[in-house]
């Protein structure tokens, strides 16, 4: 959120039609809500060991499939007893669902942020070049059209089948379908900006192409990319959960929201808590990111609403 004042300054520098319709407070409410939930989830992820959790992968064969809120009293070697409360019950291996959900926040957020940052970096690089150099444009855009013709989740599913299952392969499999969308967005901005007088002036002044791209064209893409980044982040969190849920994502012993739900599928009729708690966290996080993205879009550039 620290980038906002600078972006806002840019916004006022270039006169654009006022967003109108919804009031200022209404728009900012979305940004505040989204950012607050996201911050909360990040804190939960970082502070996971401090939140009354136990080892999320520790199995407890004697205490499988228990309902939320159940307590287990263990007599230690020294004769004292300790009680552990399973706030969200246990799964079919006796693992604490609460701990797994809390630790699951780490994986989801990590994937969301990693995918957003990397796919935007790669897409920005390709998009800048494609938008500026015509001969590259023809080839690159045909390739991107081809990639976009494959539905994103399907492409991700196919890509994970190629690698060994793991965090990195899941991240790569989600990044590749996102890249063409970033490239298209960046390219469309470059195409409109390159006709601006200040760009022509820079060319006349003898600015070399790499410098021209970085100093004069790249800054124009930033507001759109921040907005696009939030949507990619939301999408990535969803796709990771889908892949893990289908059993083709991150290895099942790693606590991720998708894995917890995949594990809970078999006994869903009797123990629905294994699906509802992680599902709720997942939905809330994705909702927060989406609302944040909508808010930022209205705030940063009303024209973006059409482009995306």
């Amino acid at each position, binding site marked *: 959120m620290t980038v906002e004042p600078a972006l806002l300054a840019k916004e006022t520098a270039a006169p654009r039609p006022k967003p109108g319709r919804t009031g200022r407070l209404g728009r900012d409410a979305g940004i505040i809500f989204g950012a607050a939930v996201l911050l909360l989830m990040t804190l939960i992820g970082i502070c996971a060991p401090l939140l009354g959790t136990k080892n999320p992968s520790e199995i407890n064969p004697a205490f499988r499939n228990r309902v939320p809120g159940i307590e287990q009293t263990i007599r230690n070697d020294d004769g004292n007893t300790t009680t552990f409360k399973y706030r969200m019950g246990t799964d079919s291996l006796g693992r604490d669902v609460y701990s797994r959900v809390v630790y699951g926040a780490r994986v989801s957020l990590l994937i969301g942020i990693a995918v957003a940052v990397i796919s935007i970096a790669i897409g920005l690089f390709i998009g800048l070049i494609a938008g500026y150099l015509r001969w590259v444009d023809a080839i690159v855009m045909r390739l991107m059209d081809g990639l976009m013709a494959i539905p*994103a989740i399907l492409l991700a599913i196919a890509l994970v089948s190629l690698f060994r299952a793991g965090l990195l392969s899941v991240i790569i499999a989600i990044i590749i379908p996102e890249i063409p969308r970033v490239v298209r967005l960046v390219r469309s901005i470059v195409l409109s900006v390159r006709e601006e007088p200040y760009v022509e002036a820079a060319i006349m002044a003898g600015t070399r192409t790499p410098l021209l791209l970085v100093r004069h064209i790249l800054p124009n893409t930033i507001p759109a990319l921040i907005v696009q980044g939030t949507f990619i982040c939301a999408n990535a969190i969803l796709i990771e959960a*889908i892949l893990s849920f289908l059993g083709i994502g991150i290895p099942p012993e790693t606590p991720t929201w998708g894995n917890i739900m995949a594990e809970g599928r078999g006994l869903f009729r009797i123990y629905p808590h294994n699906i509802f708690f992680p*599902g709720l966290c997942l939905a809330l996080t994705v909702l927060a990111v989406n*609302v944040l993205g909508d808010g930022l879009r209205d705030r940063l550039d009303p024209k973006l609403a059409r482009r995306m």
Partner: protein
Amino acid sequence: MAGYILRRLAATLPVMLIVALFVFLMLRLTPGDPAAIIAGDNANAEQIALIRNRLGLDEPIITQFFIWLMNILRGDFGESFFFKKTVAELIASRIEPTLALSIATITIAVCIAVPLGVLAAYKQGTIIDKIVMGFSVLGFSVPVFVIGYSLIYLFAIKLNWVPVQGYQRIGDGFGGFLQRLILPSITLAVIYIALIARMTRTSVLDVMGEDYIRTARAKGQVEYKVLFRHALKNAAVPIVTVIGLGVALLIGGVVVTESVFTIPGLGRLTVDAVLARDYPTIQAVILLFSLVYVLINLLIDIAYTLFDPRIRY
């Protein structure tokens, strides 16, 4: 007009060629020998050599691509080494559930989303508008399988109105077919409704300021006719476009929904194929889904010229 259709068709060819190239390279880029992958873990060197020879893997890669492409154009997708059938047979046996699910979903989504979007645009800025838009953001955010399991829990387990999971072929009785199709279709429709309602609202709002709307109102046209006959008709192009683009979401959703509801369709086949590393089947399914996606959008582009006489190519 005919020239335009031909040009659009011609533009689709390179896209599909690139999709085919990606799908082809996917198998070639896997670490290891594709012949060994296809042969599986229990094959000996001779069997691997035989497969390599049969697939033409000794040829240069470009030749291999065209051999593979020619086979596919003849409908020969190879043999699934997991299901022990030809991939073409396998796909044919799985099409019906997916087609039924998709058609039901699109029907439900359009019937709900378009009136919702028009209502939100008409009541712009009011609480109704905010509820519809809030629902739309929610629809984008809740994963398909969470919606699916919530609906199963409520309607199948608690209320016992419909069977929990499964699929019944349409030939085995229409009632049971519909009964088992209703929950998965609603599940899958949610995200689609969110998408279409949003686009409907935006594009109806866009045309509401036009002169012909004022004219319609001035001549005393009743409001719902102004909305549905004058506004919606002119707002149709972006709405239909987004329905076409949404097919990509639909295909992704089909894969998940079929797994949740254990429907033996193409989506379930995709997941099974990936779990079994059944590459010929994965390739065929991706090609097929992409082709459908591209063709639907091509048809929609062409349909504009029929819907909207203002568009001339």
